């Protein structure tokens, strides 16, 4: 279970998040919804450790952790960015196995086998040696998901996963997220798409701008 206690984040004098507490049981999906400027992305960036928090504590299964700690052993959170941020100079396969091989020291052969399994599951067979620019947006997103999963995060976060996709692909992503739930991946989805949130989430957190 992920537990966040009294998270506060300010930019200068402006409070973006005020003493927010969240609990997500393992394998559940939390959707964070709200209008632009409500601090959804800031909240996500705090959870994935790209922003320092002003106060607040993070616990995974009762053990406190620091999301900004980049120690590979502390790899609790993974993320899929809005524009995926695949590395354009690396092929699909290289994108996925870079971190497992270089950071975790997994043997290349083993990492490739694992990656191939996930690629096959996500309908990306045969794309291993393509570069990101040769893929559609939906395919890039699935590669980004595989890349994040390859580091075995306990929690996977998505920033606006549907914003760049057409309606058919939105359903595909929803299906994908629900499938990962079956594998007990805890997931946090930032979206302004209420319908999508209702389709996938066990719980919906509405954030509003702080006046």
């Amino acid at each position, binding site marked *: 279970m992920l537990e966040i206690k009294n998270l506060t984040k300010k930019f200068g004098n402006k409070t973006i998040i005020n003493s927010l507490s969240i609990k997500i049981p393992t394998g559940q999906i939390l959707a964070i919804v709200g209008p632009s400027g409500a601090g959804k992305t800031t909240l996500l960036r705090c959870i994935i450790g790209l922003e320092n928090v002003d106060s607040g504590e993070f616990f995974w299964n009762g053990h406190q952790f620091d999301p900004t700690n*980049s120690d590979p052993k502390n790899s609790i959170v993974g993320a899929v960015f809005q524009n995926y941020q695949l590395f354009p100079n690396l092929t699909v396969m290289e994108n996925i196995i870079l971190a497992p091989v270089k950071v975790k020291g997994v043997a290349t052969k083993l990492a490739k086998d694992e990656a191939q399994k996930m690629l096959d599951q996500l309908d990306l067979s045969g794309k291993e040696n393509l*570069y990101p620019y040769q893929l559609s947006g939906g395919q890039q997103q699935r590669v980004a998901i595989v890349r994040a999963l390859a580091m075995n995060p306990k929690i996977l976060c998505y920033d606006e996963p549907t914003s760049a996709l057409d309606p058919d692909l939105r359903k595909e992503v929803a299906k994908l997220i629900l499938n990962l739930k079956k594998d007990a991946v805890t997931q946090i989805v930032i979206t302004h798409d209420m319908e999508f949130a209702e389709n996938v989430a066990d719980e919906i957190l509405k954030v509003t701008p702080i006046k």
Partner: protein
Amino acid sequence: MLNYIQQILPALLGGTKVTLSIFAITLIIAIPLGILLGVTLTSKFKPIKWLLNTYILIMRGTPLLLQLIFIFYGLPLLGIVFSRYNAALIAFILNYAAYFSEIFRGGFQSIPKGQIESAKLLRLSKWQTLRYVLAPQVFKIVLPSVGNETINLIKDSSLVYVIGIGDLLRAGNVATARDVTLLPLILVGIIYLILTAITTYILKAIEKRTNVWR
């Protein structure tokens, strides 16, 4: 005529050797130096940035010829004496490193921040991020500009003439003055063209290899 060409060719090739040695040594030192200064320019530490920007302003804002003359003829007045060859190398390295540092600064700054964040989330170390993510992307971005400067350098190297170094241009000029014929200067032009053509070809080949991804 062929006889004459055969006669002066050894002198011209000797000059070419000097030209190439200045070219190669300048590149080998100025490019890494430019990378280092370029990365430093993206840092947030103001005093060093100010210092570097002043250096770049002077190097890019005054003629290379002046810098060359200043180092070889000017500095001895302050008791700092370099050999002709070393003075030429110092001038070229300082001048070209300034241009390269601006090129590399631009290269590093044009990589989206998300790439670095993405690498951080995958727990790649700073060095790994530089090695596998940033460097290849920056390399591709800066290649055309670095190529331009490289070709410029071949031609700029002829400026060492003014401090009396026996480069390709001087070898040609000496022969022209001695034998009262245009041929040596035409040959010099042809040799410069061959050098730039080879460099252009190599640069194109490297660029082609980076074009497999976008």
